[in-house]
């Protein structure tokens, strides 16, 4: 078939010799610029192979005479980026965390940096967006804080952690295992649970809750307060609100009183630099539950009514 090369009469072009059902393929020559472009790409390819890493070997690849590598470039870019961020990071480092909100741009930078650090170090327990995990890890987005929700307090909590045995500045407190250690009888625990569910508006007062109130006064009030409003200096949760870290139903509260969890959070000053911790605190603060100033250790019963309807939120700071 390939022998039938000839000159096509109509076009005067040589045929390639390919023929199918009487249709022949013309061997039209390429334009010269096209051929030159092809040669240029070949030259480009050779030059590239010499200059850049290209040829795969068993352990690695040819290095190229320019010494360029993608890892090296990444290293450079990371350094350049660190340098670019240095002024902001230095400014954050030099600002006391309580003063950050007064500098909106710095605060915004801190919140963004904190969001990135949060995704690396915190989401494993506290969940994406700080939502927490029911019955395990507290939500960081609500308005209820075990140890306090202003910037300085959050920073302290992140820095020193909670119940770290190797660190004396860590936040620490221990709820006794009333059931497990036999401090209270199961029937007494049931009475205390009734009382707790009454003050949290989940049950109506009963004879059991009345007996529980006495037991509460004797065993629980020292940390949780006489009214059950919690105590932040020992991280004692407020028992009168709607937020229950380990569950607010009868079985869950009974389990907690019998054998408390005494949750642990790692201290981060051993792993993160102070600026990162500061940015993390700013981010957690920004999630919606941040408190303006340190609140008194014993929270007073808040009676925050629903918003006045139809009124504009004028006069905001």
């Amino acid at each position, binding site marked *: 078939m390939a022998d039938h090369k000839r000159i096509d009469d109509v076009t005067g072009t040589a045929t390639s010799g390919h023929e199918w059902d009487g249709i022949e393929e013309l061997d039209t020559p390429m*334009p010269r610029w096209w051929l030159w472009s092809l040669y240029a790409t070949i030259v480009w390819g050779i030059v590239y192979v010499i200059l850049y890493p290209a040829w795969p070997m068993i352990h690695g690849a040819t290095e190229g005479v320019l010494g360029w590598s993608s890892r090296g470039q990444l290293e450079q870019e990371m350094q350049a980026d660190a340098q670019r961020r240095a002024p902001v990071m230095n400014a954050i480092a030099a600002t006391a965390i309580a003063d950050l909100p007064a500098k909106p741009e710095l605060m915004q930078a801190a919140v963004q940096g904190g969001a990135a650090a949060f995704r690396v170090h915190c989401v494993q327990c506290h969940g994406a967006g700080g939502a927490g995990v029911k019955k395990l890890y507290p*939500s960081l987005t609500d308005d209820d804080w075990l140890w306090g929700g202003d910037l300085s307090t959050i920073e302290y909590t992140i820095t020193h952690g909670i119940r770290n045995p190797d660190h004396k500045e860590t936040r620490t407190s221990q709820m006794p295992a009333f059931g497990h250690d036999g401090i209270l009888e199961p029937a007494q625990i049931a009475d205390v649970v009734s009382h707790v569910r009454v003050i949290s508006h989940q049950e109506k007062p009963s004879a059991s809750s009345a007996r529980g109130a006495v037991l509460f006064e004797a065993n629980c009030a020292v940390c949780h307060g006489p009214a059950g409003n919690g105590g932040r200096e020992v991280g004692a949760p407020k028992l009168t609100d709607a937020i229950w870290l380990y569950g607010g139903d009868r079985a869950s509260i009974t389990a907690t009183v019998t054998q408390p969890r005494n949750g642990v959070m790692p201290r981060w000053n051993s792993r993160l630099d102070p600026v990162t911790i500061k940015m993390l605190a700013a981010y957690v603060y920004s999630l919606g539950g941040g408190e303006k100033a340190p609140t008194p250790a014993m929270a007073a019963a808040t009676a925050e009514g629903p918003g006045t309807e139809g009124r504009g939120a004028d006069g905001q*700071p």
Partner: protein
Amino acid sequence: MASPEDLTGEHGSLYAARKGVYPKKVDGPFRRFKWAIMAVTLAIYYGTPWIRWDRGPHAPDQAVLVDLANRRFYMFQIEIWPHEFYYVAGLLIMAGIGLFLVTSAVGRAWCGYACPQTVWTDLFQHVDRLIDGDRNAQIRLANGPWTAEKIAKRTLKYAIYLTVAFWTGGAWIMYFADAPTLTQDFWSGQAAPVAYVTVAVLTATTFVLGGFLREQVCIYMCPWPRIQTAMMDEKSLLVTYKDWRGEPRGSVKKAEKNPGAFGDCVDCNQCVAVCPTGIDIREGPQIGCITCALCIDACDSVMAQVGRPRGLIDYCTLDDAATEKAGGVAPPIRKTLFRPRTLIYFGLWGAIGLAMLFALGQRTRLDLAVQHERSPLYVQLSDGAIRNNYTLKLRNMELRPRDVEVTLSGLPGARLWTEDGARETAGQSLRLPLAPDSVTSAKLFVVAPGAGPARQDFTIAVRALDDDPRGDRETIQFDRPGTEP
């Protein structure tokens, strides 16, 4: 005339050298029309960035500006934001349908008159004539030895090519930054690297494509001729050699000796000599013809000299060609322009244009976008209420600062505040100041009583607190714990 061998090079060769095209100077109505189009298109291209347009202190004063850095597109009174890119899409669709319209009506008019490749090639061919002389002088010089004169002429010519090419690349970048400032920065070496790179690339492409590749771009590189052949029909205008009138060819002398034996074509080859793509139109319709109609000018002037009627080569549709060949009289050209196909294209084109104008007139310059934060979907608060978080984006597209009011409705007992606001004073609406020509982003917290359906739609609305109260609203979901209803 060139034999097929001349056109395709030596057999067996890997490549075919370009055959030089040295179009002869010609004058006539189409040439003058081409001049006019060239003047207008070049004036628009080079001049537009220099038109000033006062927009006040918050926006640049350039009439036509593609502000990539700030993601704005300015065109006289109109300012386009990235999310309004559909206007640009609409313009592109109009340009597409416009090409259908023009091509179905008058064939490859775009190629022959308005295509940048044609315009710059034409410009460079005038430079050739200015430096080297007309066709014959150019051929002599091209084939001649490298004398000092040839070197000097080539140097001068390429210098002019480069100047034009540089100016072309330089004009392009003016559309992307304030032209006077950029010019100053450019020459003092302070412009962005991308400006220099763009100018260098466009200078190189103009120099190579316009100065050297020329008709090869149209014949080998450009996809448009292939598409156009599919869009034309037997009622589209083509540059046509009327072979039924011209053939057989013969010189005036031969025709005088044998009256009646020859057609009107005197085989003077002027149509070939003036063709910028170097084709012979007498071989029939072909892809190399860009319908610039310079051959019509050339042929008409020859016909006038030998005293024969004009229009041996003329704009003619395939239908009209068939009619004339059969001895009939073709209808006037304007009748062929108005037919269902062109009218439908025109209707479509006009409808899109009107719809865009209407949308442009109706658009609000205050835009709201609300996004529900999904992690967490909702937050349980200590007083039993439920909080949902949203990201609020407010676009103030006017060139003045504005105060706006954000209001929620359809969610009983709900309050809202932003991260900057005090949650204690939260209510059903809040006020925000918006900077001019900018997007303001805010975290929005909405609190509603804990009792209620698991999913509830409500509305967030924004309106301006000034003389133009038009705003925007969006319906979005509020989530609570519990099962779906």
